[in-house]
C-alpha cells in the first residue's frame, strides 16, 4: 500500500483548485457539435414513450425531477432506477455482461465510473445546447460523452436537539473525541459513490490513520450517503461523519433539527455527471431527457428542491445556503478514485468490518 500522507499545504493547495479530473481527457480537434431540441426529437421521444434513468441521487429528489420532466414533455414517462452509485455501477456491469441494455441515461455520484464507461465504449456522445453554451470546460467531457449534472459536498452534521451548537464538532478530527463514541452515523463507500469519493479525498488528505481511529468510535454503519442525514433527523444519532449536504439542506429547510458543519480540513467535493448509454433502449427519449436535465430550468430546480449545486453559468444559489465559493473544499480527483476505488473499499471493509 502506498502512503497517502499529504502535508497540510497540499490540502490547502488542493482545496483551492477545482479541477475535475474525470474531464482531463485531451481536448480533441473537434468536439461534437451541440444539438438543440427539435420537434422531431420530441416526436421520436414520445413514440418511445419512456426513459429509464439510473441514478444515485436521493429517491424523492430523483422522482421530483422525473415528474417535472414528464410535465414538460407529456407522453415521455421517466422511470427512476435508484440505488447507491457503486451498486448502480455493478448492476450496469452485470446487466451489460448479460447483454441486458436497460439504462438510457445514467447519473453517478462517483465520477470515476464515467472514466470506465467511456474507456469501455459504453457511452454515446451527445452535447445538449445548454452544456455547450453555459458549462465550463472542466465540467463537460471533451468528447461530449457526459457533463456534470450535479455537484454537492459530503459534510459533517449534527442534530440540534441533541447537540448544542458550541459543542458540535468543527472538524473531522473532532469526531475522534471520545465524547462522540457510539453517537456517530456514517455511510458506506461500498454502496455510495459520494462516500467512496469522500473516503478517497479524506484518506489522501488526512491519512488512513484517521479512519483507523474513527473505526474505534462504534459508529452506526448505514449504506446510502442520503441516510445519515435522515438518521440525524430522526434523532437516531447525534452526529454524522459523512453524508449528503443536499439532504441536510432539505431537512433543515423543512424545519427538521439538523445543522451542517463544513469541516475545517475541507469538505469533500462530489461531482455527479450524467451521460447517455450507447445501447440505450430509448435513444431519442434519452437525448430529450439529457437535454432537459441541463437546462437552467432543471438545474435551478435541482438547486431549489434538490439542495444540489450547479455549474450552469446562469444558475443561482439559493439564499440562506452557504455559497460554494465560501466553503473550503477537498480536491476531487476522479482519475485517482478510478485507480484506487477497489483498494479503498477493501481497506474500509477491513477497518469497519462490514
Amino acid at each position, binding site marked *: 500500500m502506498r502512503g497517502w500522507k499529504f502535508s497540510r499545504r497540499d490540502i490547502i493547495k488542493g482545496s483551492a483548485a477545482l479541477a475535475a479530473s474525470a474531464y482531463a481527457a485531451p481536448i480533441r480537434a473537434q468536439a461534437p457539435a451541440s444539438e438543440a431540441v427539435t420537434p422531431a426529437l420530441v416526436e421520436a421521444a414520445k413514440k418511445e414513450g419512456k426513459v*429509464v434513468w*439510473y441514478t444515485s441521487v*436521493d*429517491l*424523492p429528489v430523483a*422522482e*421530483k425531477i*422525473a*415528474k417535472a420532466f414528464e410535465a414538460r414533455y407529456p407522453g415521455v*414517462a*421517466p*422511470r*427512476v*432506477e*435508484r*440505488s*447507491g452509485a*457503486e*451498486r448502480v*455501477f*455493478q*448492476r450496469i*456491469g*452485470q*446487466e451489460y*455482461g*448479460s*447483454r*441486458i441494455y*436497460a*439504462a438510457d441515461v445514467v447519473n453517478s455520484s462517483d465520477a470515476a465510473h464515467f472514466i470506465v464507461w467511456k474507456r469501455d465504449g459504453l457511452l454515446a456522445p451527445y452535447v445538449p445546447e445548454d452544456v455547450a453554451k453555459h458549462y465550463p470546460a472542466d465540467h463537460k467531457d471533451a468528447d461530449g460523452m457526459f457533463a456534470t449534472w450535479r455537484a454537492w459536498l459530503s459534510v459533517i452534521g449534527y442534530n440540534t436537539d*441533541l447537540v448544542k451548537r458550541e459543542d458540535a464538532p468543527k472538524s473531522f478530527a473532532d469526531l475522534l473525541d471520545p465524547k462522540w463514541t*457510539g*453517537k456517530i452515523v456514517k455511510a458506506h463507500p*461500498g*454502496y455510495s459513490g459520494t462516500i467512496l469519493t469522500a473516503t478517497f479525498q479524506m484518506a489522501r488528505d488526512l491519512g488512513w490513520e484517521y479512519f483507523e481511529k474513527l473505526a474505534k468510535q*462504534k*459508529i*452506526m*454503519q*448505514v*449504506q*446510502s450517503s*442520503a*441516510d445519515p442525514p*435522515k*438518521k440525524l*433527523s*430522526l*434523532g*437516531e*444519532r*447525534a452526529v454524522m461523519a459523512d453524508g449528503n449536504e443536499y439532504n441536510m439542506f432539505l431537512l433543515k429547510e423543512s424545519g*427538521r433539527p439538523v445543522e451542517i458543519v463544513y469541516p475545517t480540513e475541507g469538505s469533500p467535493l462530489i461531482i455527479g455527471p450524467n451521460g447517455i448509454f450507447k445501447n440505450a433502449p430509448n435513444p431519442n427519449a434519452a437525448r430529450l431527457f439529457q437535454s432537459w436535465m441541463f437546462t437552467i430550468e432543471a438545474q435551478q430546480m435541482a438547486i431549489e428542491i434538490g439542495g444540489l449545486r450547479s455549474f450552469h453559468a446562469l444558475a443561482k444559489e439559493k439564499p440562506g445556503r452557504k455559497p460554494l465559493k465560501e466553503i473550503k473544499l477537498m480536491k476531487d480527483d476522479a482519475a485517482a478514485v478510478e485507480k484506487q476505488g*477497489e483498494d479503498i473499499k477493501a481497506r474500509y*471493509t*477491513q477497518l*469497519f*468490518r*462490514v
Partner: protein
Amino acid sequence: MAALTQAAAGHAPARPARLDLSRPIIFTFAAILCVLIVLPLSWLFYYGFVDRAGNFTLGNFRQLVSDRAFVDPLITTFILATTASIVCCAVAAPIGWLVARTDMPVRGFVRLLVTASFVTPPFLGAIAWELLAAPNSGLLNRAFRAVTGAPQDEYLFNIYSFPGLIFVISCYTFPYVFVLVANSLDRIPGDLEDASSILGGKTWTTARRITIPLALPALLAGALVAFLQSMTLFGSPAILALPAGFHTMTTKIWSLFQYPPKPELAAAASLPLLVLTVVLLRAEHMVLGRRGYSVLGGKGAEPRLVRLKFLRWPALAVCLFVLLNPVFLPYGALLNATFSKVATQIVTPQNFTFHNIEFVFFELSATKLALKNTFILGAATATIGTLIALVISYVTARKAVTGHRALGFLATAPVAIPGIVLGVGLFLSYTRPPFILYGTLWILLIAFVTISLPVAYQQLQSAIRAVHSDLEDASRILGATRLQALSHITAPLLRTSVIATWCFVFVGVMRELSAAIMLFTSETKVISVLIFDLNESGDLAAISVLGLFMLIVTFATVMLANRVPGFGGGIRLRNH
C-alpha cells in the same frame, strides 16, 4: 384440478395405456426437476473449486477457513442460529401446548396471531423493529425515556446489536416450532391420556408422562427447523447486523457479489450452508420419522383439554404478551409511520399526512413495475408450482410409476438449498450459454418454483394420501365406481388443498428476498427487493406504506386459504 384428477383416473383401469403415459410423465418431470436443482448446484460446486482462470483449486476454501472476514461471520451465524433456535423452542412449546391442549380462552385467535407472524415477511419485521427499538429514535425507547425521565443517550433496547438480531429473527421463526408442536399435540390421540387417567394419573402426571414425551420429537424437529431458518435468513441480518458492524454468512455471501464480484468465493462460502442444511434435515427426518401422515377419517378420540382453572386468563395474557412482539408492535409501528410526517413520531393531528401513501403510489416510479412483477411471479409460481407438485404427489402417493421415489426425492430436495445459495447457483447457471435467463422474469420464476416446490409437494402429497386411505374405499364399498369415488370424494377434497397450496406458494413468493436479491435487474424488481432498496437509502415511511400493502395482500390470500383447512401439518413457508 378436478379434471386433471379425473383424466388420470380415467386411465387407471386400463393398465397398459397407463404404462405408456407413465414413462413420458416420469421422464419429463424428472428432467424438469433435474434442470431446476442439479444445474445450479453443479455450477455452485464447479465455481467453489476453481480459481479466476478456471483451474482447480482448494484456495477458496482455504481462504474461507483462514480469513477472519469469513471465519467471524461463520461463528456469528452458528451462535445466532443456535440461540434463536433455543429461544424459539422456549417460546413456541408452551404456547403450542396452551393452544392445543388446554382450555385457555380464545385459542383460535391465538393461533390466528401466530399465523400472522408466520406470514409476515421477516425483513419487514426487522424494519418495523428499527422503528420500535433503534436505541435513540425507536418508539419504545422514547416511551421509556418519557416515562422514566432517563437522559437522552440511555435506552432500553438496541435493535442494532447481536441480541437485537436474535430477538427479531426469533419473532418470525418461532411459528415454525409452534406449528410442529401444536400439530403433533393435536394429533396425540385422547385415548392414551384417558388410559393414564383411568390408571390413576393426575392431570399433570399425564401431561408429564404421556403428552410431553409424545410431543418431544416434534419439538426437536422444530429446534432444527428454527436453526436452519435462522442460519439461512438474509433480510434481517442485512438490515440489523450491518449497521452494528458485523456480518452473518448470508450477508457475507451477498457482499461478495458487490463490485468487484467474487463468484468463486461466494460459491465456496455457500457450500457449508448447503452441507449443514442437508445434514440437519437428515437429522430432522430421523427424529420425526414418518411425520405429516395425517388421516382424514372418523377415527381417534378428541384430545383431552387440561383445565387451567384460575390460570386461564393469565395464560392468555402471557400468549398475547409474546405475540405483541411479532405482530401488534411492529404492525402498529408500520401503521404509525405510514401516516406520520416523521417515521418515528407518534401520529398527532399536527403531523398526520397522506404524503407517504401518495409518494409510494403516485411518485415512486418503481412501484408499479415492482407490483406488476410480484403479482405475475406470484401467480405464475403458484400455478406452475402447484401443478408440478400435484402431478408428482399423485404419482408418488399412488406409486403410479416405477421410480416415483426418485421424483419425490427431487421434489423435496430444494428444502436443503438456502435461498441465497440457490440465488448464487442460479446466477452462475443462467448468466451464461446455453440458458441466458438473467434479466428476465424467467430466472426469478425458476428460483421461486424451485423454492416453493417442497412446500407444495408436502401439502398435496399428504392431502392425496389422506383422502386415499378410508373414504375412497368406503365410497367404493357403498357401490360407487372408482371414477365416481374420485370425482365425488377425492377431487372435492383435493380442490381445497390445491387452493390452499396455491395461496401459500403465492404468499411465499411475496416474502422471498434472499434469492431475488441475487437475481433481480432493474426491469425485474419485485416488492421485497424494492423494500430492501428503500431501506438502504433510509426511506422508512415509503417502506411502511409498501409493507402494509404487502401485509394486506398477504392476509387476504391467507384468509382465502384458511377458508379451507390450510394451516396444517406440512406447510413450511421458507423464511427468508
